[in-house]
């Protein structure tokens, strides 16, 4: 990634927090840089190149998966239970390493990142985990604020932005409750708030509406769309077919360890058939 652009172009723009990387850390191109290099807007933010991954030797999960995701895209990822959706996302934020193949995030191979650079990669990625990963004895606010605190954002700013994020997911006024005391859907919304509060360049959502009622699911999808509008790339792993129908978006199906692309939602009949079989 550093080949095309001088380092000086990585300045933060007005709307986003200054995310400083120390020398040697991961230095991605932030969204702000695109005004300096118009072609970058059309470059792929994320490239999977023949990626293999097996947790146990005899049962491979990904078998030569290739996938390109352009900057600013909104992609649904779907597939049956155990197909490898969560694995795919975990590879992106370097919680797992690929056995083979390359995963390029902004031109850099995250599978070959030094452990000390991983935190700086993750600061550019917001993740809604399938199992939420909340700290049960922290308050709702603390759970959301942690995303900003690790960046060293000032407490006053943290408080304000946490309030905004909770507002967006419909949890205004619940900030002081312990996370363990909230309902399943409310916990899921804390996880969403934490993922969006730091305004990351890439948003990964792993089944973020599994515990929400249909109306709320559509609302939350709308929230992701809003964030997407600001230029954020969104990967949205879900089983919920009704969400896929709501907007005609690019849909990627994981099947047999490979990714099959269906552009523009489920209007492709063959793809629909495929989904039903999966």
């Amino acid at each position, binding site marked *: 990634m550093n080949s095309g652009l001088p380092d000086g172009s990585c300045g933060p723009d007005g709307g986003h927090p200054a995310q400083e990387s120390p020398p040697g850390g991961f230095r991605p191109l932030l969204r702000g840089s695109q005004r300096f290099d118009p072609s970058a807007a059309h470059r792929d933010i994320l490239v999977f190149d023949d990626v293999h991954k097996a947790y146990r030797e005899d049962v491979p999960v990904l078998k030569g998966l290739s996938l390109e995701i352009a900057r600013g895209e909104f992609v649904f990822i779907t597939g049956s239970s155990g197909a490898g959706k969560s694995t795919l996302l975990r590879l992106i*934020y370097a*919680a*797992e390493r690929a056995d083979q193949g390359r995963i390029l995030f902004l031109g850099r191979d995250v599978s070959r990142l030094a*452990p*000390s650079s991983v*935190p*700086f*990669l*993750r*600061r550019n990625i917001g*993740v809604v*985990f399938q*199992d939420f*990963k*909340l*700290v*049960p*004895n*922290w308050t709702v606010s603390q*759970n959301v604020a*942690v*995303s900003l605190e*690790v*960046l060293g954002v000032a407490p006053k700013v943290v408080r304000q932005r946490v309030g905004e994020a909770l507002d967006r997911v419909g949890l205004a006024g619940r900030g002081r409750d312990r996370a363990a005391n909230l309902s399943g859907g409310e916990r899921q919304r804390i996880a969403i708030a*934490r993922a969006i509060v*730091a305004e990351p360049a890439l948003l990964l959502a792993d089944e973020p509406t599994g515990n929400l009622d249909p109306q709320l699911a559509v609302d939350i999808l709308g929230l992701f769309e809003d964030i997407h509008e600001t230029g954020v790339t969104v990967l949205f792993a879900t089983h919920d077919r009704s969400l896929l129908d709501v907007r005609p978006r690019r849909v990627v199906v994981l099947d047999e360890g490979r990714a099959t692309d269906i552009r523009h939602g489920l209007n492709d009949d063959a793809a629909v058939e495929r989904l039903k079989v999966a």
Partner: protein
Amino acid sequence: MKVLERAWRATKADLRLHVLSVFSVAVAFVCLAAALLVVVNIDAVRQRWEQSGRASVYLRSDATSQQVEKVRAALSATPGVGGVRFVSSEEARREVLGASNDDVLTALPPEAFPASLEFELQDDAASERIAQLSEQLRALPYVEAVETYEAWGERLKSLLSGGVSAALLLLGVVLLAVISVVSSTMRMALQRRSAEVEVLKMVGATDGYVRGPFVVEGAMQGAVGAAAAVGILGCIHVIIRSSFDGALGTLLGASPSFLPWTACVALVLLGAIIGAATAAVSLRQPLVGETCS
């Protein structure tokens, strides 16, 4: 600072674990500090004996003052011997008993405190000459015994070097104990806060940010443990001193002294450093990979 605040919050949440750990660290340090205390006191006694470089010729109670005078003259004439002083039986008694009200001691017959001639040996050669002289002195009918304290001094020296090596050994043991206790505690704390640590790692906290509070907690445990040990030993010291003062004083020739404050501070610092280092090292391994939910 932020990290101190986070460490303090975590300590409060895991108070029980930390108290248990501090207790174990304190026990280890009590052993070390006790050994140091013994060394310090033996050394003090040795120094008193050595500095004084004294010797005594004990006289039988039926010795006449003429006979005493003769011995005194013989001693004074010996080169390297100075400050010859006659200590009467009464004086000896007073010196030993001091202000003690000990029934057993006061019940001792006057014969237990023979009169003596005390003198100083100005150099090592003198003590050798006295060794030769003592044969002749002992042969005198009115001399009961000659005591140069040589043997006692030697004995104290060997005791002291024994004490020092015991203290060094204990230092090693304490180091190991503190390291193992603090690292166990830190790994337990890490496990108990695994949810928190995982979240921090996932939102992009550096290893340093995650590990910071643990290192502070380790240092705190070591320091508090060592300080508690010094405190406990201080209490024991005061109790022993007040209840056995007479007897110990007579035995040692001085009331027992406590560790100098520099040693106390050094112990606490040692605790803090070991604790912090152990915490830092013991958390290295699991954070590189991914923690599992």
